[in-house]
């Protein structure tokens, strides 16, 4: 029989190596998976992890994908540290895109520098309010926030479909379920000519830095860490559990909403039912891969973006099925959690007494 035994002093080097180890193990297991599909594993891993770094356009795409992941994961990391599990960032992302996008459409063809900030505020407010539903249900009735926030993702998806098929539909769009393309004042400025890298990349980086400072220097960050480290000590210190639940869900909701609005007003340029591509769920992996630290999350979201872009390339050059790429990302979380456990516990073989 195998037994897990807590290590008395977890080696610091091992703790630090956990994310790297997880990525390496994912490469190995992914290679085996691709080999089983009859593809050259070395080539597949190279296409996913190396090729995107060599091509300038792929590099800019990396930023386009990493930005929403960073925004959402940074928001989630506060709650995950404090033991508040928002699994529905995908839903908050959609509502953020909807409310931000709706503002853009309401002022369609109206020029003005004020429009984008207004859309951003609307997006954040939308995500915030959507996240308040699980928060209030948890505070008032003790409802599990994991289930409520997750189920609200599907509700949000249906709202998106309903609105782009109805009130927000493009009047000149032949009844296709999609909105008008946003006009220039409602579209995010591009950072580098010829790419899709938009201003949201810089904002995501700024948010990560601000979150880092908040987590380590501000009283709010202290309370988050205290609640995660010792919930009873937090209550003794006077931290209100309810206020923390609301704050953690609210922050992650607002940031997911902002990411959604950026996605709509950036790379996509309109509201369509296919807008959500799973950033809200992938961000959960990113948050843990970054060890719940804002700066680690920036790195982790770049790695995760790499698997997205490399995965797409692998899909059309090697005909690897899209599902294999999702399996690949899932493996990353699996190996991350496994190495995390093994860094804190020792595996020991014990013989059961007869």
């Amino acid at each position, binding site marked *: 029989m195998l037994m897990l035994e807590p290590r008395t002093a977890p080696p610091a080097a091992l703790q630090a190596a956990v994310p790297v180890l997880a990525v390496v193990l994912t490469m190995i297991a992914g290679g085996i998976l691709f080999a089983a599909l009859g593809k050259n594993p070395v080539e597949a891993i190279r296409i996913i992890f190396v090729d995107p770094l060599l091509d300038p356009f792929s590099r800019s795409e990396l930023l386009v994908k990493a930005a929403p992941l960073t925004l959402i994961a940074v928001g989630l990391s506060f709650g995950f540290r404090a033991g508040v599990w928002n699994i529905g960032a995908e839903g908050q992302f959609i509502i953020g895109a909807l409310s931000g996008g709706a503002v853009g459409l309401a002022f369609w063809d109206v020029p003005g520098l004020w429009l984008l900030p207004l859309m951003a505020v609307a997006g954040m407010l939308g995500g915030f309010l959507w996240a308040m539903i699980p928060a209030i249900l948890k505070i008032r009735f003790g409802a599990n926030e994991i289930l409520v926030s997750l189920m609200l993702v599907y509700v949000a998806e249906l709202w998106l479909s309903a609105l782009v098929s109805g009130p927000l539909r493009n009047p000149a769009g032949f009844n296709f379920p999609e909105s008008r393309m946003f006009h220039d004042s409602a579209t995010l400025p591009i950072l580098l000519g010829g790419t899709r890298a938009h201003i949201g990349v810089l904002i995501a980086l700024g948010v990560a830095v601000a979150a880092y400072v908040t987590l380590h*220097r*501000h*009283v*709010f960050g*202290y309370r988050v*860490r*205290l609640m995660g*480290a*010792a919930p*009873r*000590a*937090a*209550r*003794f*210190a*006077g931290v*209100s559990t309810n206020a923390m639940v609301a704050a953690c869900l609210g922050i992650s909701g607002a940031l997911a909403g902002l990411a959604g609005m950026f996605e709509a007003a950036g790379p996509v340029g309109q509201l369509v039912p296919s807008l959500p591509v799973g950033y809200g769920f992938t961000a959960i992996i990113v948050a843990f891969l970054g060890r719940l630290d804002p700066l680690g999350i920036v790195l982790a979201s770049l790695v995760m973006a790499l698997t997205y872009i490399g995965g797409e390339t692998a899909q059309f050059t090697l005909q690897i099925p899209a599902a294999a790429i999702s399996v690949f990302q899932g493996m990353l979380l699996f190996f991350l959690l496994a190495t995390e456990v093994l860094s804190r516990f020792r595996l020991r073989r014990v013989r059961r*007494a007869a």
Partner: protein
Amino acid sequence: MSALLSIRGLTKSYPGVLANSDIHFEVAPGEIHALLGENGAGKSTLVKTIYGLVTPDKGEMYVDGTQYEPRGPQAARAAGVSMVFQHFSLFEALSVAENVALGMTDPPGRTELGQRIRDVANAYGLPLDPDRLVGDLSVGERQRVEIVRCLLQSPRILIMDEPTSVLTPQEVDTLFQTLRQLASEGVAILYISHKLEEIRSLCDRATILRSGRVVAECRPAEKTARQLAEMMIGLELTRPLPRLFSPGTPLLRLRDLTLPAETPFGTTLKNVSMELRTGEVLGIAGVAGNGQEELMRVLSGETRVDADKLVLESRQIGAMGPTERRQYGLLSAPEERLGHAAAGDMSLIENAFLTGNRRQRLSYRGFIKPATTTNFARAVIRRFDVRTPSAETKARALSGGNLQKFVIGREIMQRPRVLVVNQPTWGVDAHAAATIRTALRDLAAEGTGVLVISQDLDELMEISDTFSVLEGGRLSAPQRTGSLTIDEIGLMMGGSMKDQTGKDAPRADA
């Protein structure tokens, strides 16, 4: 005399600390051997090594002349070494028998186990019903479960870590009879305690540790408690001076509070009233589980009550949370150091911030002031002689007594109007306990009202001016310290107080 357990040259170092250095001692069959030392002297490391929880860097151990190298507690138990820990590891929602079975590698069937528990319990005068829920047992009875669990393995060496800190005087007597009986049957007992009088009456020999080394060996019965304490700390003890107490103006008043238990294993507080005056040290005696936790939470603000139930200097504070109460000067230090009074995974600096934020102005516009916070933590460490490599060290890495000094010191340094402490010296060595008690008295001398909840009667007799007994969620009327003998108080703690002190008995000092 051939030794049953002999320790030769045992050495263990941790980063920055030499926990044990070249330890030698022997324990004969049938001997009750005391291990004495301050916090951080290396007692815990030593017994953990013997119990197989710690692997030594150097040195050998022998049981019955054969070399003994336990690779874990299971191996230790197989070699006949058992240990009763200071903190129990029992599941409240399970029965006694189920708890015992969980600790066995190969438990027998239900009926057989029940019978064996009864047999062992009766043979050693430890009455115990295998079918009762542990949650319903008193602390003394829970300890019996732990002891019976050990005895079922027929140990030859039994390690007891601070077994009496949670017992009433009567329960201590029963425990000592059991231990003497075991010794007469040839079991060697390694006994750790800070209560020197106990060691003098119970133990045959004592090994005294200081800073990880053996500094003396003696027969405790031939020494006075004071001599033992001085050997332990290597210098002369200062006791707090008895002080004439003149009651001041009322500071904190709790009015007729009734509070239903929150959990099935909690205690309901019934019509609890009390009054604390300036300069008063009020002791609340009682065996754990009689409402201490609940009362503590009401006072700290973790449990909120109606505003007018709790009044601090004419301000109704019952409905306020801990932060606001701290602002008005009501500070507290709960019993459980790790996880409640302090967060184990955070540094001492961060733990200083935990309660010190408002009163010490450790933040500005929501941002933590790192230098000021570090200074505050260092000041606590210096004044209360907290032994730690640095202020950045995690709370978890400190020994229990040192963390306790830090937790109490953190509150005292904030100059409270009222300080509430629960078990201020539990598991703390004589020297540290004296430091804490003196600090509490000094605080009272400056006009602070101090409320001490404790199970240690000697402690309450030493530091409190007045005291009440908490039993079954009821608080007795206050008595002037010294008006009752320890035995009489022990009986009150055991639940026979109703005829002695009525609710409207006059204050003894009035």
